[in-house]
């Protein structure tokens, strides 16, 4: 297998996006972080949601990285197996890097928050799960560890959707692009209200509470691990038969 070269190319491809993203995030944080220093009002400024922003970025990255990479690998005689293994390793590496950088930004933000009580900078993980002992190394390592799997789940999902769309013909793409949102936003609420007496949304709500709103971040970890395992298997089923459509 020519995994080393494949990895080198794929990581290089992702790194450009990561650098641009984090330069933007750091720039935005610095810009909004200094506003309260110069404009002293009665209110205070809250900056947060770094993990959410990164998740969106990684989802989009996964979504837009399939077709171009697939064709480039085919052009250079790389098998689907090698490109898929390379992709999994690259996604893992990107998730680890993003998770560490996010935690660093959040911790620097906490120092700024402490120095100026008009600014509150915090991460979603901190707000959701644990409010205490946030300074400890163990806490930060745990946060990084769990966020890695959240990011992997998100980027893999984007990749999986892109792979499925690549395999579909135009009619199927249109049907899914319209059908899935229509089902989730229109049909399911109507069915839930008329047929299931609200049990479907109650179930979804309970699931989301189990994953995100509980005191235990390991619920999120287990959910991500199961999701990753399922998406990896499904992605391989889709990719192993993917062909040049040019």
């Amino acid at each position, binding site marked *: 297998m020519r995994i080393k070269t494949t990895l080198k190319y794929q990581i290089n491809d992702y790194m450009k996006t990561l650098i641009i993203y984090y330069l933007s995030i750091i720039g935005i944080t610095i810009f909004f972080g200094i506003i309260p220093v110069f404009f002293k009002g009665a209110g205070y400024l809250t900056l947060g949601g770094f993990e959410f922003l990164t998740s969106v970025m990684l989802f989009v990255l996964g979504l837009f990285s399939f077709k171009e990479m697939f064709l480039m690998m085919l052009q*250079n005689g790389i098998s689907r197996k090698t490109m898929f293994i390379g992709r999994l390793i690259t996604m893992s590496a990107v998730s680890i890097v993003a998770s560490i950088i996010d935690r660093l930004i959040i911790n620097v933000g906490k120092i700024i928050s402490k120095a100026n009580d008009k600014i509150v900078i915090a991460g979603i993980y901190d707000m959701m799960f644990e409010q205490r002992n946030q300074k400890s190394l163990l806490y930060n390592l745990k946060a990084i560890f769990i966020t890695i799997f959240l990011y992997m789940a998100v980027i893999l999902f984007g990749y999986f959707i892109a792979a499925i769309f690549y395999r579909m013909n135009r009619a199927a793409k249109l049907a899914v692009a319209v059908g899935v949102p229509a089902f989730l936003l229109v049909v399911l609420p109507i069915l839930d209200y008329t047929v299931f007496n609200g049990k479907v949304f109650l179930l979804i709500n309970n699931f989301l509470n189990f994953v995100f709103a509980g005191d235990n971040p390991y619920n999120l970890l287990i959910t991500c691990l199961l999701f990753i395992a399922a998406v990896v298997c499904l992605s391989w089923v889709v990719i192993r038969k993917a062909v040049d459509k040019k």
Partner: protein
Amino acid sequence: MSIEIKDVTKNYGTTCALDKVSVTFENNTIYGLLGRNGAGKTTLLNVITNRIFSDAGEVLIDGIPARENDEALRKVYMMSEKNYYPENIKIKDIFRWTGEFYPDFDFEYACSLADAFELHLNKNVKSLSTGYNSIFKAIIALSVNTPYVLLDEPVLGLDANHRDMFYRFLIERYSETQSTFVISTHLIEEISNLIEQIIIIKKGKIIKNESREELMTYGYTVSGKASLVDEYISDKYVIGVDSIGGLKSAYVMGQLPKEKTLEGLEITKIDLQKLFIKLTDN
């Protein structure tokens, strides 16, 4: 050392693109893969390079199955009519990455070819014209130094000067390396002096796989005064005629007569394109 294609079949819905195709591309030979539009040329090349999967049969590259096999696939480079490279990447970066994927890629030679073709290395793929899109891929194909180089419509959009340059560089490269080149093109006349072995594919089947010399014995050309040519061909199987003023050239199927001059007529080798048209005509 060869690419062996064994009973490869590929269907697209109800259309049979390749029908139990068996052919071998031997080492250090220039092949012409000829066929009409939709005959199955690109499909065959795509199956060899693992870009699409065949429904049946197998491809062996130097004895190794090519399907999903990195070791076999690294021995083949395919230049396609369509672009597979990212559009926002500079040509020099494509050269650099090709060197990573194919360690024998000659970067210096590629740069010298780019210079000869006046291709700017700092340009992005998407900013290239159709001709230069072919040129950058042709440069890679000529510099990649893999044992097998497959060229699918390599001169698409190239002007006459660039086509001539490409053929000269191809011959130069062929003489320097031990590579096998497979050229799929519709410009038969232009490559007729280049190719050694001709494979003609028709409706997914290989109908001819012979050396150029052998194929040329299928017929001959008779040229001379129109009245003399008409008289000569009256009992012959003629596949085409060209007339200019009082002169005429007729393309005749059958063995070349032993005497080269027949009563004021000139006998020469058959025009490959005319023969191709005859062989692939419905």
